[in-house]
């Protein structure tokens, strides 16, 4: 079995196991809150992973995640609530419309000859605001009144509402991560990495840069819109201010910067950590200072960890395992917290802090502890992602 087939089987096993979480929750009567926490996490895993397909792989910085997500939310809101479509029919349209929005942007901006990356970044920053005005202006879309999505009928075979929402978010998150993984180890992925490293050289070597960028942007927008469509139900009441704000792009950028933008696993790890932490911050009543902390983390992480914590976790896997499970075991056994999520949050914070230790300091520490044994030199190259065949 090839390594790709093995990974895909791994995805399938994890997916099936997670799909039965609602049944386990019911059987053992865990609090329902855990399910909601989990599908919030799936939402962010999907958003961060889809963002990373474009920005992480190709290096084109996008602030447009909120716009694509918003197109998805509003498509489902308008088609299902106002036009009476069935949810399952509206969902693909949500993805499609978001994808088209992305392709339109790409068609305009990728043709620009100078400063393409910067102009792309700022255009994506502006588009969410423009779409927000459009939604406010058009009574067909919103007209400033908002749309109630509570009580939207879901297919019955998915179970009752929370269970159905859980399985839908899980499915979309899984699709996103699999797509991100498949692109990462493909000709398209290598082409995108080449664009990130040096676009003119990639172009000269025969990488169809325009087509590859469009595919990556289209995939990003489509997947973001698909998850937006699912999330429309979870929102309950869809408003322009709630949907087209800076939150979605801010969080996906933070998650990917934290986890690492070069590997498909980076955004997943980042999303898991950030979702857990913000959940704890909110439940501790720190929702107000939340954004300040998030912004501060973004500045520090962008400057401190260039490659993200995932690459370092792999390099220092033993330390990672000891720190994470050590802290997790300690907090669980001592029963320090009222919630299992808090235990995980402490373990994650401890692991991230250990991973933030710079490589130079790390090597120094390792030498101190292993003075007697021969130090096994690990090369940087083996840990970096592949950039070409």
């Amino acid at each position: 079995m090839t390594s790709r087939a093995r990974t895909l089987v791994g995805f399938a096993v994890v997916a099936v196991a997670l799909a039965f979480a609602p049944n386990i929750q019911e059987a053992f009567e865990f609090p329902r809150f855990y399910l909601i926490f989990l599908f919030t996490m799936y939402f962010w895993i999907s958003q961060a992973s889809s963002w990373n397909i474009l920005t992480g792989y190709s290096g084109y910085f996008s602030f447009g995640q909120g716009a694509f997500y918003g197109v998805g939310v509003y498509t489902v809101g308008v088609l299902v609530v106002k036009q009476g479509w069935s949810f399952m029919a509206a969902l693909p349209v949500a993805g499609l419309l978001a994808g088209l929005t992305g392709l339109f942007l790409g068609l305009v901006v990728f043709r620009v000859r100078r400063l393409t990356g910067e102009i792309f970044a700022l255009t994506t920053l502006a588009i969410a605001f423009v779409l927000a005005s459009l939604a406010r202006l058009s009574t067909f879309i919103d007209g400033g009144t908002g749309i109630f999505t509570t009580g939207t009928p879901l297919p019955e075979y998915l179970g009752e509402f929370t269970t159905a929402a859980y399985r839908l978010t899980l499915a979309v998150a899984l699709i996103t991560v699999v797509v991100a993984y498949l692109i990462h180890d493909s000709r398209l992925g290598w082409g995108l990495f080449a664009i990130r490293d040096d676009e003119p050289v990639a172009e000269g070597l025969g990488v169809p840069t325009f087509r590859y960028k469009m595919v990556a942007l289209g995939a990003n927008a489509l997947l973001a819109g698909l998850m937006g469509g699912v999330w429309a139900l979870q929102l309950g009441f869809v408003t322009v201010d709630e949907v087209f704000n800076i939150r979605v792009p801010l969080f996906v950028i933070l998650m990917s910067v934290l986890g690492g933008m070069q590997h498909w696993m980076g955004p997943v790890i980042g999303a898991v950590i950030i979702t857990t932490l913000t959940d704890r911050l909110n439940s501790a009543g720190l929702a107000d200072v939340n954004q300040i902390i998030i912004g501060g983390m973004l500045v520090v992480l962008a400057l401190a960890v260039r490659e993200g914590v995932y690459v370092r976790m792999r390099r220092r896997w033993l330390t990672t395992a000891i720190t994470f499970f050590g802290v997790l075991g300690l907090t669980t056994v001592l029963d320090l917290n009222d919630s299992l999520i808090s235990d995980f949050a402490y373990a994650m914070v401890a692991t991230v802090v250990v991973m933030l230790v710079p490589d130079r300091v790390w090597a120094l520490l390792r030498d101190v502890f292993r003075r007697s044994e021969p130090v096994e030199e690990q090369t940087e190259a083996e840990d970096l992602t592949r950039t070409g065949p």
Partner: protein
Amino acid sequence: MELLAQGIVSGILAGGLYALMSIGISLSWGALKIINLAHFAFVLFSAYIVYQLTVSFEIDPLLMVLVVVPLFFLVGVLVQMFFHLAKVDEFKSLIVTFGLFIILQSLMQTIWSADFRRIGPALNTYETESFFIGGIAFQLPQLAAFIVALLIAGGMWLIFTRTYFGKAVRAVAQDPAMARAFGIDSRRVAVILSGLATAFSALAGVFIAIGQSMFPELAVAWFGIVFPIVILGGLGNSLGTLVAGVIIGVAAGISSVLWGPLSAPLVTFLILIVALLFRPEGLITKRSIA
């Protein structure tokens, strides 16, 4: 017809204020290769400071220019020193300044809440003052902002074309390493330029404070207007930025009259798309320093 003429005049004057907000971003992008998203927050922060000082001490809000401009010059200098220290490149500058923007915006939200704030007619006599030419109103705050924008754009143009400092800035913008080889202290040039750019943002904030209501989300709303102006005007080209500001201002003014104020962002974005399609190298490139 008169309404339309009023829309155009208001648009031209508003364009001056937009240009004042854009010049700082254009300078730091064109000459320093740093896209400073925090500038949007600087403008609003300066406006809030003017508001707070005026309300607390009951003094003339225009006098606050003497406070916020030097203060934000210092902020710009410190920010640039920090960027040098942390070796922030163009790509990282987007993430880092976006983080700064979020921090500043949340700070404003925490300090001044999400409510609308305005200085009020008792302390701010400028807001309601206007004079008429042929039935068309010229509101004083907008007119003042326009004149200041004109002076700054012209002044920066003179500095860039006529002085040693301007030559040094252009050299640094083209090739920092080569500029250093020719004896230009590129760090000092960058620090001064960043201070100037931030000071211009603070100046724009003063006119925001005396001209309109403030709320934290305003900083986000400016993205859609300021960015097209910066692109159309040409990076680092202060006169071009002023012209682009007036164009965008007039377009937004006319569309507000015809289809209501909500349509303005759609029209400005449309202009940007058309401009990118037909003039991908920018509207006015001749004098761009980048």
